[in-house]
């Protein structure tokens, strides 16, 4: 029992540190003097440690227990993705994307792209049902207060900051850019946009389609 509670504490601590790190990365975008490479690198290292420890503690809590919707041989990350409380996933997965796109030279990209390379296999293994679970949740499971309640919007100029050559961020930035544009020709709620989200905890990439303006959605971070 004590082992489980310790694992849960570690788990909670890891999640908290991860959330704090993401908010720091987000806040550093507006810092005077520009993004600090050293500081961004250190924060991303902490994020990685927190993520690794979170994974390890989740495995120790429920070792090898498969979910009915996923193949037995799927990696632990896709299993965790299902179990991960949505309110943690939603703010977590979007902030790194937002934080990264205007700052091609932060070391956080390293982590994200490491996630991307892990993801490609997961995507193939994932069932559609698992993907559906990434849909937006209601305000009842909203993001923690310290994170912005609205999805961070790219400033018009930020898209031009596409990552330098050789960075895997180019594709993601463009996708992310689409997200914030109104679907041409639609002035009501019927436009649909494709969302690509990367969960920093599990490294899983999911693509969903959702209306660009979601009725009834207020507080959840996107």
């Amino acid at each position, binding site marked *: 029992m004590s082992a489980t509670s310790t694992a849960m504490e570690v788990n909670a601590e890891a999640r908290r540190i991860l959330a*704090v790190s993401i908010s*720091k990365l987000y806040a550093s975008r507006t810092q005077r*003097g*520009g993004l600090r*490479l*050293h*500081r961004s*690198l*250190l924060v991303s290292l902490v994020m990685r440690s927190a993520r690794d420890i979170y994974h390890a503690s989740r495995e120790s809590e429920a070792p090898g227990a498969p979910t009915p919707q996923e193949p037995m041989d799927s990696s632990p990350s896709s299993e965790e993705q299902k179990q991960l409380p949505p309110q943690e996933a939603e703010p977590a997965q979007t902030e790194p994307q937002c934080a990264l796109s205007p700052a091609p030279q932060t070391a956080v990209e390293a982590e994200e792209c490491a996630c991307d390379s892990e993801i490609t296999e997961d995507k193939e293994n994932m069932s559609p049902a698992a993907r559906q679970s990434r849909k937006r949740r209601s305000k009842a499971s909203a993001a923690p207060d310290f994170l912005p309640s609205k999805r961070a919007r790219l400033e018009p100029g930020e898209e031009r900051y596409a990552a330098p050559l050789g960075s895997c961020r180019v594709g993601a930035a463009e996708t992310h850019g689409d997200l914030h544009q109104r679907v041409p020709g639609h002035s009501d709620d019927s436009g649909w946009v494709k969302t690509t989200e990367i969960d920093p905890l599990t490294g899983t990439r999911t693509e969903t389609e959702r209306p660009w303006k979601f009725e009834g959605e207020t507080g959840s971070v996107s």
Partner: protein
Amino acid sequence: MAGSSDGNDEVQWCFSQVKGTIDDDIAEADIISTVEFNHSGELLATGDKGGRVVIFQQKPESKNLPQRRGEYNVYSTFQSHEPEFDYLKSLEIEEKINKIRWLPQKNAAHFLLSTNDKTIKLWKISERDKRPEGYNLKEEDGRYRNASSVTSLRVPVFKPMDLMVEASPRRVFANAHTYHINSISVNSDCETYLSADDLRVNLWHWEINDRSFNIVDIKPDNMEDLTEVITAAEFHPNQCNTFVYSSSKGTIRMCDMRTSALCDNHAKLFEEPEDPNNRSFFSEIISSISDVKFSHSGRYIMTRDYLSVKIWDLNMESRPVETYQVHDYFRSKLCSLYENDCIFDKFECCWNGNDSVVMTGSYNNFFRMFDRGYRQDVILEASRDNCKPRSVLKPRKVSSGGKRKKDEISVDSLDFNKKILHTAWHPLDNIIAVATTNNLYIFQDKVN
């Protein structure tokens, strides 16, 4: 001699002066960002977040009181850097002075290098105490005389005037750094200096500002592979071919410029294996080196990471020869320090004149001195409460355990907003300059 004690007597430090406002409301521009004595110790320069440099000069010792050292008074103040805007990247460039380094003095004028995140400037500080008088064609106030009224000629002579100290920028070394400059260091060859940013080290000639040579480049081809950055760099005090740079991973690399033009391959790598017992989320952050300083002898390197000061012998790369814990009681509080951003504070460290004592800052306006010879260390406080001239500073104690003794301060009551990041030690004497957020304290050892 500086730093040495008579027999086993401990040096006692006394308050000498404090510079800056008493105001509790601190203007951000007044935050001191660097402190540096010149090579003789006569001048003390400070830089602040507002881009200003203030230079203090020590008055000569009074003949009446030969035992008392002269006070430091303002000698010159000038605006070194202004805020700039990089239009290409839509980034504001802060005017904060990151470092000041004095050039060795060659004539009556003084030269120093000051740098912000992107641009280094060479300043000449010179005195003017005479002016020519007795022009033939000009009146004393500068108006031109009617040429026809001149009936005789005279030679203008120099007459004394009130001392004027002028600071003029002689060189501007710009556009050589993509990342933020963290260090500058003057070479002992009296011709060159280095500047270091997060990923590169450049070599400059003092006289040439439109060209610099890149000597270290740790930028990976793919930025996603980045794992460490350069945090500080310094030239060897007397070997002009040798310099060191520290990294965010806690390593120090020593390079020899004779081996090749690009010193990406180090000559020596100083690294201590990590203690697995101390592993935590924040191990990487606290092992990042915030300052590196050669001893005056050139035999040792001192490094400062978040919790400790380490002394390395240049002849031994495997581990430091001495390690001093500055404030180990914070080790259990790293999570809070991460949340309030204090874990990113970059403390500096310095040697005394004969390399026997080292000093560094901490929180709550505490600073620590470690005597290497006698293995003694002391915690002192820079505080307005202890400002009577020549009053002796009382050593402070921090209690990390449950029971707090009298006169001890509990760890939980330490103020993280009061931090001493910048300290400097007079090169020849027991005089230290300690910068709190916006005040500069000058202490000296007690003279009998």
